[in-house]
């Protein structure tokens, strides 16, 4: 440790430092790890190899992409920011608190759950040489994240009083909660919370950052180029450089990968991914749980006959989940159990898997007097597989005696008129991977429009109690009980969780090690 500080002090001394940087990135990479055992396994001469520039392609958001990730909704905006800025932390099931911290040393929770104390990791440096302090974390949280309109930051704003966060000294930030919660680490360390320097208002090339790479080039809608930041906290990346490209079309991304123009293609469509199956130079690397997108159907309890729990159950029993996984995703997906957030610590693992039982479904519909009912399922191509799933669901429903049909809207239209959407009787939808209980509180509890008529104050109370419970076993019990009511009586059919079907050239390694796979990080990646 002391040796490292000496090295840094040396490096800061002007020209000599610059020269050392120029000649010895390999040397620095070899001696600058703070946690050599956990972060890097590379010894001299062993893999992964250092160096090279990795090129990765994503859907992108067109020319409206922005460096301001607090206001950039496209996946690429966040991936770019992850490469560029330090993070509070990422979810890590194997970590002691269920998270792996980034620029933090740890998060303490007050006994009465009224406040969280974020301990800043000492010695983290920005690219301008200044040290990261509590003020920087505070600015990122209370000025930037607090005013963001993106759902993920709103989740934090719904749980923490961001405006009243305060710094105590240089290395401590105290964050009051809005109500007692014990699962706040999971919200703060989802990977989205990145830290920029105090006072940052505009995001531009050359601004100080403390992520694994520094930005050297950015053209919205086209891509960004990075070079390794040799003073990155924790560990220095293996790669010399990184290029993040926007290639909107799935087939074009796959073509660029097989043509050798890129090394990593993000989120391919199931069909495209399948065509890569027999290509010897590339491999499919689908994201793993919890980084799976839930594909679901919402039944509107304000519309007859979905106010009848028997009809809702019949619809859940009618789905042939396995067939959806096999035909739509060629086996590259997981069967869902009508609850979101598969794989998150607060997901109700203990519930039995819902069976496929068209006979029982038919009987239930008959019992409810809804035999031969007519319903239109409205959906749209908002994410690959959505329309195909709806088509299969309608066939399953027909087998249970429902006169069902699909109405497919053009891309972008399904959610555009939200009040109209929430008034439909049966709709397609998808859920990003987010924790179960906090998300329930934000978007389902209290009869919110996106709950489609679900209003159960008993369940809402149970969820609040589960989140306010410090004892993990007890919290788990309460959380599972709350989710059981959703599972039994709820109005959501969630048959499939699909991964992001990523693909990479053979020999690319270490992307998964960076966690938060949905928005891949490259700080531990290496090329063949």
């Amino acid at each position, binding site marked *: 440790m002391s040796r490292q500080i000496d090295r840094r002090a040396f490096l800061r001394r002007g020209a000599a430092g610059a020269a050392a940087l120029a000649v010895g990135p390999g040397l620095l990479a070899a001696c600058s790890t703070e946690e050599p055992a956990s972060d890097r396994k590379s010894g001299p001469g062993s893999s992964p190899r250092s160096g090279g520039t990795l090129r990765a392609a994503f859907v992108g958001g067109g020319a409206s992409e922005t460096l301001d990730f607090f206001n950039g909704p496209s996946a690429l905006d966040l991936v770019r920011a992850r490469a560029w800025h330090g993070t509070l932390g990422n979810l890590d099931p194997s970590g002691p608190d269920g998270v792996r911290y980034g620029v933090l040393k740890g998060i303490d929770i007050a006994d009465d759950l009224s406040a969280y104390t974020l301990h800043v990791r000492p010695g983290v440096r920005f690219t301008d040489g200044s040290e990261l302090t509590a003020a920087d974390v505070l600015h990122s949280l209370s000025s930037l994240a607090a005013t963001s309109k993106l759902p993920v930051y709103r989740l934090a704003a719904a749980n923490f009083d961001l405006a009243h966060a305060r710094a105590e000294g240089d290395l401590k930030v105290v964050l009051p909660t809005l109500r007692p919660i014990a699962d706040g680490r999971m919200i703060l360390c989802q990977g989205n919370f990145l830290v920029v320097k105090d006072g940052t208002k505009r995001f531009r090339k050359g601004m100080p950052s403390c992520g694994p790479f520094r930005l050297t080039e950015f053209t919205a809608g086209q891509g960004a180029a990075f070079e390794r930041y040799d003073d990155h906290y924790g560990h220095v990346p293996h790669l010399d450089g990184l*290029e993040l490209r926007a290639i909107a079309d799935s087939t074009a991304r796959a073509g660029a990968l097989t043509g050798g123009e890129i090394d990593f293609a993000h989120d391919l469509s199931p069909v495209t991914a399948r065509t890569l199956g027999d290509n010897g130079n590339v491999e499919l690397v689908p994201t793993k749980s919890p980084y799976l997108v839930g594909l679901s159907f919402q039944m509107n309890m304000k519309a007859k006959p979905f106010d009848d729990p028997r009809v809702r159950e019949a619809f859940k029993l009618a789905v042939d989940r396995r067939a959806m996984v096999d035909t739509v995703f060629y086996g590259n997906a997981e069967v869902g159990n009508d609850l979101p957030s598969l794989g998150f610590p607060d997901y109700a693992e203990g519930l039995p898997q819902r069976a496929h039982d068209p006979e029982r479904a038919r009987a239930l519909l008959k019992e409810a007097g809804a035999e031969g009912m007519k319903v239109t399922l409205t959906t749209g191509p908002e994410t690959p597989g959505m329309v195909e799933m709806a088509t299969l669901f309608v066939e399953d429903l027909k087998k249970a005696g429902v006169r069902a049909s699909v109405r497919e809207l053009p891309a*972008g239209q399904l959610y555009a008129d939200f009040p109209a959407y929430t008034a439909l009787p049966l709709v397609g939808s998808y859920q990003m991977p987010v924790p179960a209980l906090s998300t329930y509180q934000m978007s389902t509890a209290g009869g919110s429009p996106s709950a489609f008529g679900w209003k159960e104050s008993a369940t809402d109370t149970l969820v609040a109690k589960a989140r306010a419970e410090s004892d993990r076993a007890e919290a788990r019990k309460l959380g599972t009980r709350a989710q059981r009511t959703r599972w039994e009586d709820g109005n959501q059919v969630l048959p499939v969780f699909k991964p992001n079907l990523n693909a990479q050239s053979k020999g690319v390694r270490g992307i998964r090690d960076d966690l938060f796979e949905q928005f891949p990080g490259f700080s531990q990646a290496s090329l063949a």
Partner: protein
Amino acid sequence: MSLIVFVGRRLVGAAVLLVVLSAVIFAATAVLPGDAVSAVAGVDASEAQRAEVRAELGLDRPAAARYAAWAAGAVRGDLGHGFVGDRPVTDVLATRLPNSLLLAGLTLAVTAPLAALLGLWTGLRGGGADRFVSTAAQILAAVPEFVVAALLVAVLAVWLELLPRVSVIPLGGTPLDVPHALILPVLTLGAVGLAVATRLLRVSVADAAATPYCEAARLNGVRGVRLAVRHILPNAAGPAVHALALTTGALVGSAVVVENVFDYPGIGRELQLAVAARDIPMVQGIATVLAGVMLAVLLTGDICARLLGAREGHGR
């Protein structure tokens, strides 16, 4: 009427039309179901959050007031900021429109001479060659763009490995930095335009060749290239010039299929994305500028056709 008066009158007409079109575009965005709130605030935002975002974007004001504010800015060259990502619309136009103009221009540069050549050849020759080229052109004109693109990729990029599969343009560069990446997009767009223009030219060339005036020229010993270029082409080119002007103008904004397949950074896809996100300032800005480009191209086409016509008048 002198050319200057003609151009002046056309310019005034185009300007008036542009204003009308911008209002029509705005009205169209207003009747689109839904708004940008879901794209900005996320689909699971609460009612209060939606209302807040709507107010922030200015969507709670009446449509007429929003149009007036937009028009006042547009006159000063400020097309506003996109709802998604908050980028100035003029920035997006400045980075994407030149690429689209380049693609359309190159396509025209390839199509026009080839169409003239093929049109003259088939129109004058007739017979087997004419039937072959005409049938081929007819088939080509009927095949959808994405099929042409897929065939070209399969043959030139996958099978023969002559060209890159997608147009990966160096960061901070322009498509001109990687000229070989332009070939497939230009070929795809050119194929359809060429087929249509060839068909049109062939018919008018055959008509012109049958006129007494050409007969006379031929009897006077004018033959071959000289007859074709001096006497037939000027008379036959009118309709084809208009057709080419129309397709070229349309290419600037509606090459979406080609932009997607080859990942070419044009303006068409931006417009498509903006419509999907209900990003009204972006839609409004891009669509209005594209309408302006189209009017300019049509005006150029008119002037060309008029010059050809004038030449015809004086040449006799």
